[in-house]
């Protein structure tokens, strides 16, 4: 069964709502929010071993909200989110992490950050060798290895 089917419609709505609160869309940075349909689909498709804790987090969120999160007014929604973030424990931390790990691999987001849209392998990256004359003061200072008897 896909994670999509393991979350109820209400849970998916709440996940989308809390994701938008974590990372909202920004015109200034030209990025979508974490409630974006593509990012949400990535989250649901890759929940895998995190499904149980994410469901627990969404259950907790539902208890705090007492109704669909998106239906709350802004003040009440912020209060629920703060409580969730503060006391949600491992389940809440897992939910936030899966939102962020999918958000920060989205092409649009990486492009906005100036990062390349590729896996590290096989091209890797180039690292400046640096100015090794920086070591000269270390070489010039006295200091010896502690001797053993």
């Amino acid at each position: 069964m896909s994670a999509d089917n393991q979350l109820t419609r209400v849970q998916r709505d709440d996940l989308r709502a809390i994701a938008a609160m974590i990372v909202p869309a920004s015109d200034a940075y030209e990025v979508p929010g974490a409630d974006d349909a593509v990012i949400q689909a990535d989250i649901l498709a890759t929940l895998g071993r995190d499904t149980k804790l994410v469901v627990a987090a969404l259950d907790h969120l539902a208890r705090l909200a007492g109704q669909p999160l998106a239906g709350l007014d802004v003040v009440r929604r912020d209060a629920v989110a703060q409580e969730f973030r503060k006391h949600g424990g491992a389940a809440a931390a897992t939910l936030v992490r899966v939102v962020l790990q999918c958000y920060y691999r989205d092409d649009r987001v990486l492009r906005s950050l100036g990062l390349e849209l590729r896996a590290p392998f096989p091209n890797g990256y180039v690292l400046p060798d640096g100015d090794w004359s920086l070591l000269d003061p270390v070489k010039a200072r006295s200091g010896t290895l502690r001797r053993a008897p």
Partner: protein
Amino acid sequence: MKDPVDVLIIGAGASGAAMAWSLAETKMHILCLEQGGWMNPAEYPSTGRDWEAKFYGEWATSPNIRGRPEDYPINDDNSPIKVVNYNAVGGSTVMYTAHWPRLHPSDFKVKTLDGVADDWPIDYDALTPFFEENDRMMGTSGLSGDPLSPLTHPPMPQQPMGLTGAIFGKAMNKLGWHWWPSDTTVATTDYEGRARCINLGHCTPACAQGAKSSTDITYWPHAVRAGVELRTHCRVREITTDESGMATGVVYYDKDGVEQFQPAHVVIIACNGVGTPRLLLNSKSNRFPNGLANSSGLVGKNLMFHPYAQIYGYVKEPTDSNRAPPTCLWSKEWYDTDLSRGFVRGYGVQFVRGAGPVFEAVVSEQKGILPWGEDHHRIFRKLNGHRLGFSAICEDLPEEHNQVTLDPVLKDSHGIPAPKIDYTISENSRKMMEHALNRGREVLEMAGATDICVNSPIPWGGWHLLGTARMGTDPSRSVVNEWGRTHDVKNLFIVDGSIFVTSGGVNPTSTIQALALYIADQMKQRLANLFD
């Protein structure tokens, strides 16, 4: 019944591989049983766009999170530091930072020099040729001549300094403190069939390029070509003994889960500081009711972890982030005892280059420095790619209450009792960690860092598993003698981190492997009277 082998090695990681390769020249029939399998670099995280997400699942450092069939569970609830390891051909060298310092000569004489713990029964000089041999086999890079470290001769030049290294170097120079490019097992040139490093990023969870040395691509190909038999997906349950108290072989589960008995004339354990005591304690018999080789009662005791005190911050200029091996420099400024600091012994420092975007977002959100909502994007851009890390690796002194026992309830997939860890950080270590954090803060502030955060200890930082079958000349105070043979069973040897007497303040793998090569050499010299 299977034919007996001359030598049976349990574990194909850092020490088991070195031992197998060294003994191969004897032309004895050598068999190694490994609970994991061969790795496939094509499946390593850096080959995919989801490389960071994998660190939270199938490539987590903790076997409890990772939960691969090759892993066994560890009850570390009663420890502020959680055990991390890897189970495969190559063992935890598949998943390590490749930071490659050695123990210092003074580390072998802590009782004499500082009046704490015990001296080792061997000294640094005894290991010197084996350090050198191991560095050639593993393929090290570095810059010879560090005035505060033992002299090494890395066959490859040091890693590039990079952006992060330069920032740290300047800050350390302003403070007048020691720093030096780290010796590493990352190939900086093509070396012995390994391609040079191309900076895939955080290479801790295995290197797809093969630039990071792990024993599956260094020692094992040589050992297998020399005739050593390596049997994978075989988990050893217990070592058996006869009425005279000699080891007769092992009981293990093969790749199909079928129980097997493999007779052997010599048994060598290479399962490191948690796996080795677990196996010994599970090898009870009428003759050895408290576990094998445990007449001293010290099997599983004196567990040393190296508590890590980590402090990090963010500078305005870009750092190397995930675009380089994680560590680049070390410092030994605070390595040796200075009682004016309020503690005995000391710590090494690893300077850390940075983090990838997912890791940065997740950790910074947890630390409370990355907000939810409107300001998330602005703050994230200030943090991402701007991190500097300072990690102190604190010498952990042996204490018997820090221990590995068998969990009465938790078992692995074969029904073998899981190890249980009971561990507390000592007052001496806490003072050392506090000192390190203060020095780290000075360095970061000198570099211009803000938003400084602390992980002390690093909770998932139990990389170094040491001391649980310690070496010594007194059978009442140690488990193995000065050449790795157990005091109680004359054809049973231990060659991994569990035989460390003290831990030093550096990553131990180089010393573990040098010890394994030293013990192999001792065995080869004594073949005619190995059991006397």
